[in-house]
Structure formats: structure tokens, C-alpha cells
């Protein structure tokens, strides 16, 4: 049985939601000099409150419910739900947001619209908190859309750049495509269960899952927000926003929302839906991985590595490994935020995002180099780093899943996921080499001027790097089974594959070695372009969806004017023509007839008048003639 939340918890939840949204409004009007400090204060309070919430979490989820819309016969509430998963996400979101805000203080110190920037960040955080706290699908959807709004504002933050507007719009629209599925999924849920409350929907033993379509529609929301295949192309474009935003967006907010959604609705997913989710996740992992391989933009490599890692998490969800996926979400949040903030430090130093114009920066940026190396090692899945633990947890469960499927083809999933970790190591080491090794290749900023940022930026990066080692998650650096995480979020007991760790370490080492030794191929090679253009997915969208829809819109607009309106005008013109015809008829035929009649009558009148001439003789003549005629007729 779910519990009603205690007064402390209710107050905490209210505070958690009020702080960022009130902060958003206040910060919009705040002077840029104190905006950052105020935002950091708000987030720190939020973090403290989150810790309080985490300490008060009970075994059972706790609920806060209030009525929102009452319609005759049904009522829709606003409800919030707090459980261990919520508490974990609350702390994660606040913590990463806090570091990103500290970093932003220095990174964006020249920005004139700084108040607005921190306001949008608060909105972003608040919307994400809403998703995490949501107790029913409607609330979740509402905050889900608000995350879309906040991302729109942040990606389009540099408003004078046309590309920023383009990217912001693209992100919002691609998310909307997924959201349509999400919304239909909500309608389906209400149709089948007559409730949208998560607590009732996901109650154990709530019976058969009525529909595969329901799960797949809800999953579409995740496909959009977590940049799964085929809706992944908005994520690389989202780089138009300020770099610290990318760190937040790729780690704890936005893309994490999709994974969180899957964790929440997992009991609603039918076995068939889970297979589809696994396949989509696997495709995304490979697609994102290959797309990262030949990118030249430092942030784009990281963006596609996010796509790839999100695919891994989704595939884990598909194999039923909810806790493994959430574990990877957690570890990934730290090292990916660390990587983005390090990349920001590099960009800050050399004023370019093009890795072809970097190189040999390990001496100029020693702190960044160390932090970057640690985070990259975690992402690649080297032992003694957090990424290794969470990847093992996912891969082990995936092999377990395919052995339970009784279907040889299903082994393709874990094998491909395993191979993708080699690809990850390949492109991360390639990036590491391009940025920090070799010769410095930048003509604009001399190497002597490339220097480390101040401690406000280095601090958060180092903290994130420290959090990317194994120690914080499990004492055993080679297995996550003893981790505190799996005590809080128990995983299904799978078997251990003794060969898995050595094989994956071997693949990582091979991938890394290749990445370090490779020579950059020519950028026009077809396999390079396939990677850089991420499988020509955007080109395909352009020709298959965007252009046809725009053509259809223009066509319909022509139809509107040429067909419907012309018919209307035609009806008008023909009525007027008819009126003229009628008036002609009136004038010539009817009037003619009337006039003719009048003429005839007047002629007749003249004739008769001429007869009535007043002469008695002619009257008598007429009378006699008439009499004779009558007599002739009678006889």
C-alpha cells in the first residue's frame, strides 16, 4: 500500500518544485551580477532538501495528490510520488546542475544576458524535477513538455545566430514527434486502466498487460527525448547552446528523462514491446557509436557518444534490466558531464571546437587533461572506473536475457552491445589523441596563450572526474554485484559470465589501441561521410518528410485558393452572371413582351379610336354591317 506523504515530505516536494520555478521568474528580472549567485543558492537549497527527502524515503512510494480537473464522471489529479528512484534522481539532478552553474559563472562571465541564462537553467532543472516527482502520467507529460520548452530556450540562447533558432526548433519538433506517441499512449492507458496514476498502473500483479501498442506509444516519448533511433538527429544540433548547457542536457536532464520514463512505466511494457525496445536501443548504440567515430567537432563526438550510451541504457531496459540501466544513467551522468565541461575548458582555451585545430594540449592544460583522461576512461569502460561497472551490469544481464530467449538471433543483441564498447574506446582515444597529443595545429591562438581556466571551472571538472572512479559505486573494481546501488534497487539474479570481463577489457584495449594508432582518413571517403553525416539520417528526413510535407502544405494552400476559393468565387460570379442574364431577360423578353403588349393595345386603341370618330353616319354603317353579319351567321 502506498503511503500518504508526511508533512515534512510534502513540504519538501513543494519546496523542490517552487524553488526553481519561482527562481525562473525572479532571475528573469535579476541583474546579471547577482543572478549566478542567486541561482547557485537556490540549487544548493534544492540539493539540501533532496538529501532530506532521500533520508526520509520509505520502502513504499509516498504520494501527494490533489485534484486538477473534474469532468462529469472522471477526475484528473495532480499527484507526486516519492520513492528511492525519485530520491536518487533528485540528488543527481541538483548535484550536476549545481556544478554546471558554478562552471557557468566563469565560462559565461562576459555574457550580457546572464540573468536570462540562469533563469532558463532553473526552468530546465525545475521541469526535470517535475518529471522525477510526477505521480501520474499527465503530470509527467506536462513537465516533459516543459523540459522541451527549457531546452528550446537554452539551445536557442544565442538568439543572434540563425543556426541557434534552427537547432532549437529542430529539437522541439523532433521531441514533439515522440510526444505525439507519448500522448496517444496516455490516451490508451486511460482507455484500458481508467486511471493515469503510476502507483495503480505499476502495482505488482495488476494483471495482464492489455496492449503492446500502449507500451510502444509511451516508448515513443522516450525515443524523442532520449534521442533514440530514428529521432536522434536533434541532439548533435543541440550543441548550438552554451557548452555548460550541453553538460547538463546530456547528463542529468532531458535525455535522462526518457530513461527515467522507461523505468517508471516498465510494468506496462509487454514482452513484444520489450523486444522492440531492445532492438531500437541496440540500433541506437551502433548508430551513435559509428557516427562518433569520424566527427571533427569535439562536442559532436561527445554528443554521439551520448546517443550510443543512451541506446545501451534503452537496450538494458528492453532486456528487463531496469536497475542496470539506471545504474549506467548514474555513472554516465558524472563522466559525461565531466567530459563536456572539460571540452568547454578546451574550447575556452583555444577558441575552436574543431579538433583538427587542436593537439598537444596536455602540457598547456594539465588539470583538464587529467580530468578528461579519467572521464574518457570511465566512458570507454576501463576497469577501476565507474563506466566499467555499469557496462558489465548491462552486458551480463543482456547475455542472460538472450540465453533465456531460446533464439539464436537474440545473441546478436549482447554481442553487438559488447562490440560497441570497443567502438567507444576507439573514438574516445581518437579524440583524446587529437586534442591532447601530437602537434599543436591552431594558427589563430598560439599555444602559449592557451591556458587553464580559473578554479571555478576546474573545480567542477575535477569533482566529476573523481566521481568517475569505481570506489564510489562498489568496493570491488571488477564487479558491481556488491554495489550499494543494487542493494537499493535490486536487480534480477542473473548468472555470472566469467569470460565477460576479460573479453570486454580486451575489446576496449584493442579499440583504444586502434584509436591511438589510426591515421585520419580523407574527409570525402564514403565511410567517413557516412559517419560524419550520421548515416545521412537528416538528409533522409529532408527528402522523405520535410520537403514532402512542405510541398503538401503549399499544394493544399493552392488547392484552398484555386479549388475551394475558385469554386466560391465561381459560384459568386455565376450568380452575378445569372443576375445579368435575368436582367437582360427582364429588359428584352419580359419588358419586351410588356412593351409589345402595350404597343399592341395602343395600336388597337388607335384603331378603335379611329372608329369612334363621332360621326353618326359611320356608327350607323357599322351597326348595319354588324346586323347583316349576325343575320348571315344566324341564317
Amino acid at each position: 500500500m502506498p503511503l500518504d506523504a508526511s508533512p515534512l515530505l510534502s513540504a519538501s516536494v513543494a519546496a523542490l518544485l517552487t524553488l526553481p520555478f519561482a527562481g525562473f521568474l525572479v532571475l528573469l528580472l535579476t541583474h546579471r551580477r547577482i543572478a549566478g549567485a542567486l541561482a547557485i543558492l537556490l540549487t544548493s537549497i534544492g540539493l539540501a532538501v533532496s538529501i532530506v527527502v532521500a533520508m526520509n524515503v520509505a520502502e513504499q512510494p509516498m504520494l501527494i495528490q490533489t485534484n486538477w480537473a473534474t469532468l462529469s464522471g472522471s477526475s484528473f489529479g495532480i499527484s507526486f510520488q516519492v520513492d528511492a528512484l525519485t530520491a536518487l534522481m533528485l540528488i543527481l539532478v541538483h548535484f550536476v546542475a549545481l556544478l554546471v552553474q558554478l562552471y557557468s559563472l566563469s565560462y559565461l562571465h562576459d555574457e550580457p544576458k546572464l540573468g536570462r541564462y540562469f533563469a532558463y537553467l532553473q526552468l530546465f532543472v525545475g521541469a526535470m524535477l517535475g518529471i522525477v516527482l510526477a505521480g501520474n502520467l499527465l503530470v509527467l507529460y506536462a513537465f516533459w513538455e516543459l523540459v522541451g520548452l527549457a531546452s528550446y530556450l537554452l539551445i536557442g540562447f544565442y538568439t543572434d545566430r540563425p543556426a541557434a533558432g534552427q537547432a532549437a526548433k529542430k529539437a522541439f519538433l523532433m521531441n514533439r514527434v515522440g510526444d505525439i506517441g507519448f500522448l496517444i499512449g496516455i490516451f490508451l492507458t486511460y482507455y484500458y486502466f481508467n486511471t493515469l496514476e503510476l502507483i495503480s498502473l505499476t502495482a505488482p500483479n495488476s494483471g495482464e498487460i492489455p496492449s503492446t501498442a500502449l507500451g510502444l506509444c509511451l516508448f515513443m516519448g522516450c525515443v524523442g527525448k532520449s534521442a533514440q533511433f530514428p529521432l536522434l538527429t536533434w541532439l548533435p544540433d543541440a550543441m548550438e547552446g552554451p557548452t555548460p548547457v550541453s553538460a547538463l542536457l546530456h547528463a542529468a536532464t532531458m535525455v535522462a528523462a526518457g530513461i527515467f520514463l522507461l523505468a517508471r512505466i516498465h510494468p506496462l511494457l509487454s514482452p513484444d514491446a520489450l523486444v522492440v525496445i531492445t532492438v531500437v536501443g541496440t540500433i541506437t548504440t551502433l548508430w551513435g557509436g559509428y557516427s562518433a567515430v569520424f566527427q571533427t567537432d569535439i562536442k559532436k563526438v561527445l554528443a554521439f557518444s551520448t546517443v550510443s550510451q543512451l541506446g545501451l541504457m534503452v537496450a538494458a531496459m528492453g532486456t528487463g534490466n531496469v536497475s542496470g540501466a539506471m545504474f549506467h544513467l548514474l555513472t554516465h551522468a558524472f563522466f559525461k558531464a565531466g567530459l563536456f565541461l572539460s571540452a568547454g575548458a578546451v574550447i575556452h582555451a583555444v577558441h575552436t571546437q574543431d579538433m583538427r585545430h587542436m593537439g598537444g594540449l596536455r602540457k598547456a592544460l594539465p588539470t583538464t587533461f587529467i580530468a578528461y583522461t579519467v572521464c574518457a576512461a570511465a566512458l570507454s569502460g576501463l576497469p577501476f572506473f565507474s563506466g566499467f561497472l555499469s557496462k558489465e551490469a548491462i552486458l551480463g544481464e543482456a547475455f542472460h536475457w538472450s540465453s533465456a530467449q531460446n533464439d539464436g538471433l537474440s545473441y546478436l543483441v549482447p554481442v553487438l552491445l559488447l562490440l560497441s564498447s570497443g567502438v567507444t574506446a576507439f573514438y574516445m582515444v581518437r579524440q583524446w589523441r587529437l586534442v591532447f597529443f601530437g602537434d599543436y595545429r591552431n594558427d589563430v591562438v598560439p599555444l602559449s596563450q592557451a591556458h587553464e581556466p580559473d578554479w571555478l571551472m576546474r573545480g567542477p571538472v575535477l569533482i566529476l572526474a573523481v566521481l568517475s572512479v569505481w570506489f564510489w559505486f562498489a568496493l570491488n573494481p571488477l564487479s558491481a554485484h556488491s554495489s550499494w546501488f543494487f542493494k537499493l534497487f535490486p536487480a534480477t539474479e542473473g548468472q555470472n559470465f566469467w569470460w565477460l570481463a576479460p573479453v570486454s577489457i580486451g575489446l576496449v584495449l584493442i579499440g583504444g589501441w586502434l584509436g591511438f594508432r589510426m591515421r585520419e582518413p580523407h574527409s570525402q571517403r564514403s565511410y567517413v561521410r557516412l559517419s560524419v553525416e550520421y548515416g545521412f539520417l537528416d538528409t533522409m528526413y529532408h527528402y522523405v518528410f520535410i520537403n514532402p510535407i512542405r510541398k503538401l502544405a503549399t499544394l493544399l494552400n493552392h488547392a484552398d485558393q484555386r479549388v475551394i476559393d475558385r469554386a466560391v468565387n465561381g459560384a459568386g460570379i455565376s450568380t452575378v452572371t445569372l443576375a445579368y442574364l435575368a436582367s437582360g431577360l427582364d429588359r428584352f423578353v419580359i419588358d419586351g413582351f410588356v412593351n409589345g403588349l402595350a404597343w399592341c393595345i395602343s395600336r388597337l386603341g388607335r384603331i378603335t379610336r379611329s372608329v369612334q370618330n363621332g360621326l353618326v353616319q359611320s356608327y350607323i354603317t357599322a351597326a348595319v354591317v354588324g346586323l347583316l353579319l349576325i343575320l348571315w351567321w344566324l341564317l
Partner: protein
Amino acid sequence: MILSLLIFLPLFGSLLVVLMPENQASQFRRIALVITLIEVLLSAVAYASFDKTLAGYQLLEQADWITLPLGNMGIASIRYLVGIDGMSLPLVILSAVVMLIGVISSWTTITTRTRAYFSLYLLLTGTIMGCFVALDFFLFFLFFEFMLLPMYFLIGLWGGPRREYASIKFFLYTLLGSLLILLVMIGLYLSVMDPVSTAVATGVVASPSAVSDELIRTIQAYLQNGQLNPSQIVHTFDMRHLADGGNYLPNAFLNPAAEPIVLGLPARMLAFWAVFIGFAIKLPIVPVHTWLPDAHVEAPTPVSVILAGVLLKIGGYGFLRIVWDFFPDGAAEYAQALGVLGTLSIVYGGLNALAQMDLKKMIAYSSVSHMGFVLLGVASLTAEGINGAIYQMVSHGILSAMLFLIAGVLYDRTYDRRIDSYRGLMQPMPQYTTLTAIAFFASLGLPGFSGFVGELFTLMGSFQSQWLPGWLTAVATTGILLAAAYFLWTFQRMFFGPAWIRPFDSPQDVTAVLADLTAREKLMLIPLGVMALVLGLFPNLIFNLTNATVAQWLMKFAVE
């Protein structure tokens, strides 16, 4: 008293303005402002005195107007009968608010022939109120027709370059609709008796107040058994009686049981379609919508605001009050076709909006798309759908008013409405940008604003409906993607990038031409934005009004 005041105060004001000397130009707008302000207060009083828990009509006022014995044709009766229920009250309040905003918007933009303008404006206000509160079909029709006259002149005299074409088109379209409604109105009149007055006329009771529900059923039974003397049957336009199937004369033209066939369709179904088209033109529903883009583009800003904010809602109101209520059998029979028409409007309007180069036209087509949700919700015949449809009308009234005011702000500065004439408006006009972003995001269905609630519940209703297939909702849902596409594309083109406007006469300094919002403009836009937000956060503000009425209204469609 309140409802009569709502109608006659502006009519009186209109007369007052006409009678004043032309040189009092500055007084006309003040009179209009005061009167529309009082209208808002009156609607607030109506709101306060309305009992939300009751389903029937409230604040009734009636007076006999025309009573004419016609021998064997029975007795003709037309009455002055006004009242409100949960369906009309939200629209009355909306109208009062939008008319007030319209006056503020006219304040400085209307400079020529102000006496005629404000006189027509007040005439329009009175007739619109009349439409929403009249409960006698004849009275309703009178107001409905009378609304056309000021609208025709407001577009035709104060409009843009193609105003004459637009106003004639608007007039003829609406006249065609009126004609169809008139035909059905006469048919209904001939087919329906007023059981209360008939009871009095036959001498069963002495006064109308003594008539009980039981007696009404007895009289209806007499009628069906042919026991009433035809010369004593009182024919009526009273909507309450028109909506009751028991009042239809046996063998009458529109009696559900008799059903003579005309043109291959039962006469009742034909009448259903006729009166449906009559109101569909007003809403408007594709394919009878093409008057709307022209009328909007040519009309001056305040008239566009009224047109989108209030006039379109009479179409949706007519569906609920007249088409569906008098012809429930038709609505049930053709629910699927009606749902398809609503979905067609949503998608077709959305795609058309995507193709527009003119800001006002884009907003006009977005109105077509958003009004499609109203038809879809009504066609669903579910509590969610109907409540959602009424909510959507109110929400669209607020948001479309805001959108047209936003288009007007730019037009007042540059006399150019083309989307591609502007770039980077964010720099010179930050406040304008903020309010535009609010209006755009609210219109594309961002949760927290009213647009989301209306779309959510109409779609949910259509999905729950046993009359509509599930795929229809799925198709209609793409409307919210299209809305995001055309609004955000427009926003990206007009507001992002370096500031630039298409030079028209001579090279212009962008910042000099594009001054940010004036206090008057903010006075209009901010309250509308706040209303959209408040209604979006607290949808029960409207649902509490509509619930009881809708629940009773839906009883007709309950499936045994």
C-alpha cells in the same frame, strides 16, 4: 435583468453614439470603453449569481412578444426569452472580455469615421451577447442575422486593400449559412408544440406557472395520440421545447418517427446537415472555411480579434445548443463523419498554416485547425470531449485574440504583415518577443497554458468515444505537431538572427521603426497571457461551470 442589460446596454450605447454630434470624436471611444467595461462587470455578476451545481437554464427572463392564432395552423408564439446555462456562461464572459480588449485595441488605430465605427462596434457587442443568451430560436436568429450587418461594415469600411472582396465574401458565406438555419428553423417551428402554452390554450390549467412536469407529459401524450385540436396547439421557437422529442407533432415534417424522405435522405437528417453546415460555416469547418483567411487579413486588428475571439465561437455554441440538441439522432448517426470533418479541419488547417507567408493568414489557418478540435470534441459525445470543446472555445478565444493583437503590433509599425519581412525582432523588441513567445507556446499546446487543456480533453474524449474510431484521434493528434511546426518556424524566421526588416520606402533604422510595446499594447496582451496561464493551471474554473450542464446534455446520447 442582468442578461437583458447585457444585450440592451450596448445597443443603447450604439444609439447614443449615433445621435451625438460628429465633432465629439474623442467621446465615442470613451463611451465604448465604459460600456464594454460595464459588460465585463455584468458578466461577472452573472457568474456570481449562477448556481454551478444546476444543469438547467438560469437567470431566465421571458415576455410574450408575438402570439397569433392561425386557425387550423395552431397558434404562433414568439417570445423574448433569455437565460444562461453552463455552456453559454463561459462564452458570455469570454465575449465581454474580448469586446473590452477590442475597444482598447481600437483606441488609437481607428482614426477615421470614429462615430460610425464605435456605433457599429457597440451594435455588434449587443447582438453577440444576444446570440449567447437567447433561448427562443427566433430571437437567436434575429441576433445572429443582425450581427452580420456591423461585421460587414467593420470589415468593408475600415479594412485593408481587398476589404470589399473580403467583406462581401464573409457576408455571402454567412448569409448562405443563415438561409440554411432559417429553413430548418421554420421546419422546426411547424413541427413542434409548446406543451406549457398548449396546456393553457386548451384550458387544462389557468396559467403557465401551474404546469407540472407530469402535465407536460400528459399533454405530449395527447399530442401523440391526436387528441389535441389543431387550432389549440401552440407552435413555438422555445429552444427548451425544440430539444424535447416528445413535443414533435405526429406526422410533422421533422418528427423523428415520421421521417418523410426528401432527396433520398430522411427529412430530419437533411435538416440536421443543413443546420450543421449553417453553423459549420461560422466555426469554420473545412471545406466551408475560405471566408476566414480573407476576412482576417483584411479586417482591422480589433475586428480580427473579435472575429477570432468571439464570432467563431457562435458556430461551436450553435452545434451544442441547436444542432446536436435538436437533432441527437442525426449527431449519433453521423458521429463518425463529423469526427472525420473535425480531424480534416485540424490537419488541413495546420498544413495550410505551414504554407502561409502572411502572419495574419498563418494565424487565421491556425484558427481553422484549433476549431477542428471543437468539432472533434463535440462529435465524440463524451463528457471529456464536450467539456473540452467548450474549454477549447474559451481558450482559443483568449489566445487567438492575443495572436491577432501581436500581428497588429507589427502592422501598426511597418504596415507589413509578411513573415519574411522580419528577422531578429528579438533585439529591438524584447518585451514583444516575450509576449509573442508566450502566445505561440500557449497556442501550440504547452502544458500550463490553456491551449493544452482544450486539446488534451477533446482528444481524450474522442479517444474514449464509442462513436469514433481510435485511428481518428491518432490522426488528429498530429495537429499538435503541425501547430508546433508552424508556430516555431514562424518564430525562428521572425525573431532569431541579426535584426533586419524589409526596407519599404527608404532605408530605415530598424530600432527607430520597431519600438517596443507601448503601455496600451501591454495592457491588452499581458491580461490575455495571464488568463491563458490561470485557466491552464486551474481548468476547473471552467469545468465547474460546464460539468452539470454537459452531464445532463449527454443523457440524450446515453446508449442503452
